[in-house]
């Protein structure tokens, strides 16, 4: 079977690459929208405890709804294809981003903020040059969690004719018992996981480049 799978990859390399790239686009678009909305909501609700509680409750309720049900509810509103796919994935992606942005901003030491004000920074400068950079490592963890989750749940979107690697899983299922069905599904699953690993590595590199590790070192220093 191992050789067969290898052959399957070679023979369908073009199609599989295209499906993987489409899957990646779906994930990146959804996560990008979710980051925009989630960070905006977190910043907007900073000093409004009630708004914040509502945002967290609503997004955690989204996450509880099974994917199949969410897609079923979105079909009458948005039809099939990209529309319900992106909408559902954004809804699922919001909670980790919102939550970690809030946690990151709350975790900034108030003394640091006061020191920044003390050297004459305006509130906007304090936010952009002190709070956001300090919150960024925690925010990045949220983005990584969300990305892995989105890569995996994007596969279910094929149920509503969504784009990406999930299509091969459903086709394989419809060909149950037929020759090559297992290879088709196995290849799609492997590529989904690989895509997840690659995107996660890219985000880790982004973290290194943007200095998201700094806090880790300082924390370790403080602990010892």
């Amino acid at each position, binding site marked *: 079977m191992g050789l067969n799978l290898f052959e399957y990859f070679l023979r369908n390399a073009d199609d599989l690459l295209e499906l993987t790239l489409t899957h990646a686009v779906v994930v990146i678009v959804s996560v990008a929208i979710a980051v925009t909305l989630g960070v905006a909501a977190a910043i907007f609700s900073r000093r409004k405890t009630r708004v914040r*509680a509502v945002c*967290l*409750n609503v997004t*955690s*309720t989204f*996450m*509880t*709804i*099974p*994917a*199949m*049900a*969410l*897609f*079923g*509810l979105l*079909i*009458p509103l948005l039809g099939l294809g990209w529309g319900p796919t992106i909408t559902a994935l954004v809804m699922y992606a919001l*909670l*980790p981003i919102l*939550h*970690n942005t809030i*946690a990151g901003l709350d975790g900034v030491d108030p003394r640091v903020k006061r020191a920044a004000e003390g050297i004459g920074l305006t509130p906007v400068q304090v936010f952009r040059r002190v709070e956001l950079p300090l919150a960024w490592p*925690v925010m990045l*963890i*949220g983005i*990584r*969690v969300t990305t*892995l*989750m989105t*890569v*995996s*749940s*994007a*596969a*279910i979107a*094929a*149920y509503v004719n969504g784009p990406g690697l*999930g299509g091969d*899983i*459903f086709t*394989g*299922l419809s060909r*149950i018992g037929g020759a090559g*069905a*297992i290879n088709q*599904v*196995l290849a*799609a*699953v492997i590529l*989904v*996981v690989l*895509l*997840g*690993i690659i995107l*996660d590595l890219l985000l880790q590199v982004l973290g290194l480049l943007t200095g998201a590790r700094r806090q*880790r070192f300082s*924390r*370790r220093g403080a602990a010892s």
Partner: protein
Amino acid sequence: MTSLAAASEAGTSASRRTRFPILVPILVVLILLGVAWYISAAQLDSVTARMLEPSNVLRRAGEHAWIVFASTVLGVLFALPMGILLSRRWAKYLRTPLLAIGSAAQALPSIGIIVLLALLVGTGTNTAIVAILLFSLLPLLRNTLVAIVSCPPSVTKAAAGMGMSGTQILMRVELPLGVPVILAGWRTMLVLNVGTAALATLIGAGGLGSLIDSGMQLGRMDVVIIGSLLTASFALLIDWGASLLQRALTPRT
């Protein structure tokens, strides 16, 4: 390790935030009333009426509940001891590679595991239960491990100083202190199970997802919507129950 601990920490405080405990049941009751009203008031054709018969809906809900129950019980029986074993000192060098694999496994698509297992060992309820179990093990396993490993050394050393053995420290110090984190992992697992069980219908294991699927197959949009609403209500109720249990079992400090 730092990132994992932070991530699981984030999970805990999110789920422990007050969730307006009455709101969810009210919402679910309203949805159920709306569905009941629609079924009794609308002029349904014979195909739709048969799919939405109360006996059929209840049977589907029962199948769904069984799949969730079986996969959750088996998951706890497997993940909890595994997490404890991996937290022992001799497993130190196993942990890092396993946690790395575990983090990559988050990208495993649930639908892929279910379909793959069905192709390999055949369709049916038991296949669905095993597939769902495999898919959802990780959160509880990881939270159990993190809960025990992140127990402050000062506490375990004090316990050792009082003359407790390794097992006693585990049973009377590390596990009780880890309860909130372990419960958070359990609840994540439960929610994943309820959601993934909706896919079980695709491999002939029934469940509430089959209302959605047969509605899609036969082009009955009202059945799709009702099936989705019922599946979502089921998930919300289970998560609500789990949150109450979590609150009751979490020791107050």
